[in-house]
């Protein structure tokens, strides 16, 4: 079964058009967004994210050590 998380996370971040840049770190996705208010934190948590941290214009989605893989999959959807 394909991992649905990349698609779900992308949707919860406001969709393709809201993404300026997304980068996977060891534990988190660092998401630079056009409109930070478009983020659906509840939906992100439903994907299994451990948390959502906002730092300035960057929204960090804490997904655990698979962050790299998920970031790559999201990049493929952009």
């Amino acid at each position, binding site marked *: 079964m394909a991992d649905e998380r990349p698609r779900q996370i992308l949707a919860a971040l406001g969709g393709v058009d809201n993404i300026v840049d997304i980068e996977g*770190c*060891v534990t988190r996705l660092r998401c630079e967004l056009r409109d930070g208010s478009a983020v659906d934190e509840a939906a992100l948590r439903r994907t299994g994210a*451990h*948390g959502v*941290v906002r730092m300035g214009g960057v929204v960090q989605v804490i997904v655990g*050590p698979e962050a790299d893989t998920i970031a790559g999959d999201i990049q493929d959807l952009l």
Partner: protein
Amino acid sequence: MKLRVGSPVAGRTATLARVPDPVFARALVGPGLAVWPEDGPADAVAPIDGTVATLHPHAFVVAADDGRAVLVHLGIDTVERHGEGFTSHVVRGESVRAGQPVLGWHPAAVRQAGYSPVVPVIALDATTAALAIPPEGATVGVGQELFVWSPRQA
């Protein structure tokens, strides 16, 4: 089996709550202990025997055969250094022994660049109850025991 997690760096221990990053301070990816490193330059070593499951210039995960995995993060927000000042001694997927050099770095240079050089050592997805963590403020040598991780409860 109890997993003895060794310190990847020499330094002084501190609770995760003191780490200037909410993800580690709130143990969002797991409990553990942090180490304020000596100035260096130095090699950060594998905390346990296992396989290098994740490898970045500034961080790595070693996974034991039973699936338990330990994350070592060299400094805070050091991903923004894009590898500058970091040297890798292994490749992803490589088998390592506890104490084997994984990443070379320079904590003093990290600090001079404006980043915290603190090193969170995280028992990924562990429960707090599974870790025996000694009080903070201890001096540890590289490879010396940091904390002990009990097996998952059935």
